[in-house]
């Protein structure tokens, strides 16, 4: 039911870009994976997002 996913994505529009990225990534991973797999995946993603967001 991708309808619901797009509804959720719309609700996240108001959030800051880094929060939005991480949240959508979490949802995407959760769609087809177990909680443990999502957690492992997010460990890397959160690092990437923070690195990308910090001033060089």
């Amino acid at each position, binding site marked *: *039911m991708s309808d619901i996913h797009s*509804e*959720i994505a719309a609700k996240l529009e108001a*959030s800051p870009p880094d929060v939005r990225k991480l949240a959508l990534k*979490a949802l995407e991973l959760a769609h087809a994976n*177990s909680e443990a797999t*999502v957690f492992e995946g997010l460990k890397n993603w*959160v690092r990437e997002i*923070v690195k990308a967001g910090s001033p060089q």
Partner: protein
Amino acid sequence: MILEQITVENFRQFRGRQSLQFATGEPGKGKNVTVILGENGRGKTGLFRALMFCLYGDCSLAQDEDVKRGELRLVNTSALVDASQEGKPVHATVQVEFSHDGVHYDVERRVKALLHDGQPLEQVDKAELRYRDERGNTKLVDNPSEIARRLNGVLDRRVREYFLFDGEKIEHLTRSSAAQRIEVARGIRCLLDIDDMERALAALKKLRTFLGDELSRVSTGEYAQVVARLNELQKELDARTERLEEIDKELLLAEAEKKQLDDKLAENEGVAAQVAERKRLEAQRDELKGRAGELLDQMRDRVGPSAVLLATDLLERVYGTVEDKRQRGEIPTALRKDLIERILDDEVCICGRPVKPSVPDAFEAILEWKNKAVDEHIENSAMDLWRLLSGLLGRSDDIRVFLETTIQQYGNIRNSIETTRKSIEDINEQIGGSERADLSKLEAIRQGVEGRIVRVMAERLVVGGEIAERELEGGQRKARREQLERVEGQKTELAERVELALRTYEALDQVKQEFTGEVKTRLSHDASEVFGRLLDEEGRSMLRKIVVQDDYSLQVLDPWGKPFLANISAGQRQVASIAFILALASAAAGGEVLEMPLFMDTPFGKLSWQHRENLISQIPGAATQWVLLATDTELGRREASLLSRGGAWGKFHVLESQPDGSTRVREHSVSEALSLLRNSEEDS
């Protein structure tokens, strides 16, 4: 899921191999209504059982809860007897063909049975699922758990009751036990795909804790302490929040258990009256406790303001002094101090008279004014104080009256609670002291459950308090951490990750709350709308809304917004359930029609003609497929004629009784229906 065909062989009343096709037209355009007509005992429920058994391996239905497992047979009795005379076993088979999302499925389940020492022994010995994959190849699955997984993917077991239901027991939806509500809520969340969000949230929560611990390990000084304490607080909060959820579930289950025990006790004439009285008293006690709780909250907010009565002497004294000065004109002074000082400096009064030591009268008079005068701002403060005290003293009578009234009110309620408690205790002893051992045993169990409820509710209060305490401290610590980060001038990359994980969790949690709130509101709204269309006039005057509660159970409100579910008729209850199901199906399909059959076994039994008429006109357009099993008292010519005029009626089967007691399915054309059916009596 669109049902195409069901084939039964030696299953329940159905002897030999028989098939039945379902109407599969497009809703609103084609014919999607299948009617299966049969007297009671002819096998309508047997077909429903066949469907449940084949799809989910269910060997019993909700209505069988009073029947012992061993007594329920799936295999046709006469086939079993005949076969055992030849020393052979019999196989009862059900095969269901359906399509879902464009894929064709074929499920078959088989029970093997034989008579052993005159006793029937049954065992499921085959379960197969065939489906066509994307390339058009047929795949076979014969592992029962894999079959269950695939079929749950089509229609989750936990919500099947919503789409495939038995009209006699539809009440389960609105009168379901606590344990069922919890299960169903989970199933609905799954249907609406909230599961993904919950998994994402759980992972984010874990991430937040993990990163928090990492940060704590690498930090130093006060920052490390604050971070460590925050992590600790978070873990403590998580544990307590989980405990609170567990407690709520425990309470639900305990209440349900208590109700069951009460029902059992009530079956005994000897104690029925006392059980009823106890129920009434407990309800009274709970209501009184509720009022007491509200009063306590009010009193908590009044303790501070009421304390002023203790300081009345002081206030009156000070007020009196200021008032005296006011009366004497000392405050506010007729002549301001700065003006007096100017007069003395200039040595001339405003009237022109000289003011100097050599003119003693005037000089001394002015000096006296100066001694009494105060600075302007102090004078203003004194006047402000006078005003404040005046107001406060003016209100003290009201405060006193409110205090006395509230204290007395609470005292009365407390006494009433105590009296009620004693009466309940007396009844407990009476029932518990019953000569019948089974009754006193039941009563002992019941009191144990009640004791558990009391303990758990007390724990709930404590845990709630601990959560509030930690949230308060958490807020303070966060503020300190932010302060330290500002002083430090920068945040480490790890701290940023922690922050991001936390903010993301909070944002997604917020979205989830909003989303589920909106879904429930939408469900309530849509269900209420359908409800309005399905109800007859009398119903519409008494019942205004359906509300989906937090645990996804239903409540029906009267025009004044008061809960009314307990008072509605069984027929109205069914209509409410149907309205909810249609709303749920619509929500799950994003406002479209959900590809799911509504399979209703005798839904009309308790419904008035108006209700039937409304259902017949509304449902074919609202569901992909409607399979209606009915007796001929439920479905007469009037109903058939209305169905036929709707244009959606595609298939008509009659379950005919055979001389050997079994049932044969015979298909008829829809046009024959009117001649086969009799005039049903109109409901009043």
